[in-house]
């Protein structure tokens, strides 16, 4: 990742398999504050809301809705403010 960019990673939720991206709660280019709800994923019949890891703007979505991700995979990135 380039300087000034923070990756949004799939967190470790326990021994879960791949998670599916259900919804990006903000659009690319939108401002976010660290800790804001950013993206919802689902695994093991659980919806998990991933918070923004940094403040700035949602720079890119790497895994779109319907895509799958495993722990530590990069889902997108925040261009830091």
């Amino acid at each position, binding site marked *: 990742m380039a300087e000034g960019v923070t990756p949004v990673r799939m967190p470790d939720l326990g*021994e879960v398999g791949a998670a599916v991206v*259900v919804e990006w709660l903000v659009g690319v280019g939108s401002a976010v504050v660290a800790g804001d709800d950013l993206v919802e994923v689902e695994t093991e*019949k*659980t*919806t*998990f809301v991933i918070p923004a890891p940094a403040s700035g703007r949602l720079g890119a979505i790497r895994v779109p809705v319907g895509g799958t991700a495993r722990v530590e995979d990069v889902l997108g990135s925040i261009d830091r403010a």
Partner: protein
Amino acid sequence: MLVKLGRLAYDPALALQRRAHALRVAGRIRDVLFTVEHDPVFTCGRRARAESFRVDAAGIEAAGIAVRRVERGGDVTYHGPGQLVVYPIFDLRAQGRDVKGHVATLEEAAIRTLAGWGLVATRREGLPGVWTARGKVGSVGVYVRRWVSMHGLALNVAVDAAHFAMIDPCGLPIRAVSIADEVAPAPSLVVVEERFVAEYGKLLGVRWREEPATWLEGRGDG
């Protein structure tokens, strides 16, 4: 904390869950477990598909069953009389941030509850829920935001099979069974609730302190 809501429609119970969730996120209350029996309702999880319904909207309305879209994971499920529903509003950071473990503990508590009547139930890999040899007796669907859970598990004690037959539970062509289909004489919902709460408490290592349903009123507003 344990709050037994008794028989309560889905919407007010959901409002209570959301309120408790917000208060738990804010650190204004401790973990709380709600138990409840709902009026008939189909709830659709975040990834519910229209084809999971076997009847059309008119058929559902004619049967007097409400439909609600909710934030939990999973497809379509049914809640109604004769079903024990439990909603743990827990901060999972205190439990190792283990979402799978949270679901597995709910399932295990149901399995141990059923074992009390000699009923063998299991988990199935890749198919969350609780299963007997004949079908699905327990369903799970959870939502976690800011590491605090809501929604939970539903255990069929003696549920109207005709209502369940209107959907493919969790989007699968499977059969929903009740404890009453498997055990005679069937235990009452209140007895199943007592056993479940006891087994769940043992697994979590907590002693429940029961509070009335009015417990949340006036909390966290000041």
